[in-house]
């Protein structure tokens, strides 16, 4: 990928991934330039890839973000592939195959993605990528069922929000009839006063907590401090998802036991990007996050699973669906094992979900 490729990449990104026929804004073009030509954790040997037609024009792209990792004291280089897109399939049906293969044949120890759609997943599978079910599920916790239903309808037809005032009395009725947490609702009173306290975490505190809480994973990111700070700063803007809520969860004695990061506004569905917890404290951190979302009036929370969180989620009435796949590929098969056994920290900040490409506007 070279600087002169960016306008074509931005145009494809807008049309194919954002499904918007308008020309990409200068802000989007600038962000793509910065993210993929000067990414956090930059490695001179790992670069984003473009596919060129015979005339030299861009017909495909694989955005690549380097991520240093460590596994039992051994330093590794991982590369996260995303924004994978090809246009003109009829002209060159093998372009996507060449791009994905070129990515996997790169110098990195681990090739990763957390955003593979069905077609991309099938291609990864053929190249001996390992699909990771425990990292590939989208979880959902409904808080206010009537308002949640309106929000889901509004995603298809925006005018559905006009009936949202009608949802409030319905949800109030449900709360009165069933004051305890259920599969389809979660009254704020069910958690109020029963969860560990949380407090807003600033960028610096968040960086410290990230570094601390990933330590319990055998295979984990090894972010340089400045690079993690940049990722945290960029994650602050996801206008399409709503306002950012990032809070540190502490024990009764004041010791930090976890952190959660989500985006969302009152009467909307919140998007959780990361939940961090000390081993054994996952449930307490999740409860604290749910209580926070209830108090803020969100209608539901959704996010991506991590194996370390699944056990705690099972008893808390979460629903799970598959939306996109998290996949790992490595020439050294011993590096796959910690992913299979859920001992790798992957998804969220150990992925591409922190970037503004997911959830932000570039007007």
């Amino acid at each position, binding site marked *: 990928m070279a600087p002169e490729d960016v306008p074509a990449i931005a145009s494809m990104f807008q049309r194919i991934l954002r499904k918007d026929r308008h020309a990409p804004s200068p802000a989007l073009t600038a962000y793509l330039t910065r993210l993929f030509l000067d990414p956090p954790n930059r490695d001179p040997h790992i670069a984003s890839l473009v596919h060129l037609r015979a005339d030299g024009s861009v017909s495909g792209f694989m955005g690549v973000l380097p991520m240093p990792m460590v596994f039992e004291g051994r330093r590794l280089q991982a590369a996260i592939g995303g924004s994978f897109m090809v246009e003109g399939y009829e002209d060159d*049906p*093998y372009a996507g195959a060449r791009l994905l293969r070129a990515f996997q044949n790169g110098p990195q120890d681990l090739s990763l993605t957390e955003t593979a759609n069905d077609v991309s997943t099938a*291609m990864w599978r*053929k190249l001996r990528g390992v699909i990771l079910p425990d990292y590939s599920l989208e979880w959902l916790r409904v808080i206010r069922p009537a308002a949640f239903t309106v929000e889901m309808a509004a995603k298809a037809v925006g005018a559905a929000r006009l009936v949202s005032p009608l949802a409030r009395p319905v949800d109030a009725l449900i709360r009165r009839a069933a004051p305890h947490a259920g599969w389809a609702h979660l009254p704020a009173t069910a958690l109020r006063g029963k969860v560990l306290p949380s407090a807003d975490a600033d960028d610096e505190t968040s960086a410290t907590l990230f570094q601390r809480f990933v330590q319990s994973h055998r295979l984990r990111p090894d972010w340089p401090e400045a690079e993690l700070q940049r990722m945290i700063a960029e994650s602050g803007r996801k206008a399409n998802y709503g306002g950012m809520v990032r809070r540190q969860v502490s024990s009764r004695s004041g010791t930090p036991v976890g952190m959660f990061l989500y985006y969302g506004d009152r009467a909307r569905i919140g998007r959780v990007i990361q939940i961090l917890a000390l081993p054994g404290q996952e449930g307490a951190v999740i409860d604290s996050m749910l209580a926070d979302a209830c108090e803020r009036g969100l209608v539901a929370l959704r996010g991506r699973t991590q194996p370390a969180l699944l056990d705690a989620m099972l008893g808390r009435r979460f629903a799970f669906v598959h939306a996109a796949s998290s996949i790992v590929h490595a020439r050294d098969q011993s590096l796959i094992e910690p992913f299979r056994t859920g001992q790798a920290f992957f998804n969220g900040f150990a992925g591409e979900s922190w970037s503004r490409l997911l959830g932000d506007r570039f007007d």
Partner: protein
Amino acid sequence: MSASVKSEIRAFIVENFLFGDESQVPADETSLIETDLVDSTGILEMVLFLEERFAISVADAEIVPDNFDSVARLMTFVNGKRAAAGLALAEG
């Protein structure tokens, strides 16, 4: 090599893209793309098969219709790679 390159490629296509239906085996010059037999996913399967079965290495830039779009082209490609590597040519 006991079996010919062509017959092995044909057998692979039947097994993996035709669900074992030998009555649909494409003619040597039939386009695998135009007949929707091999798409962007299937081509990766084909590349892995060629590399492992015929001990050749396929460069990303070689994954093009000129090399992969028919049984005849695949055979020519494999034989060319084997000749370049100093391996014995298989029967056509």
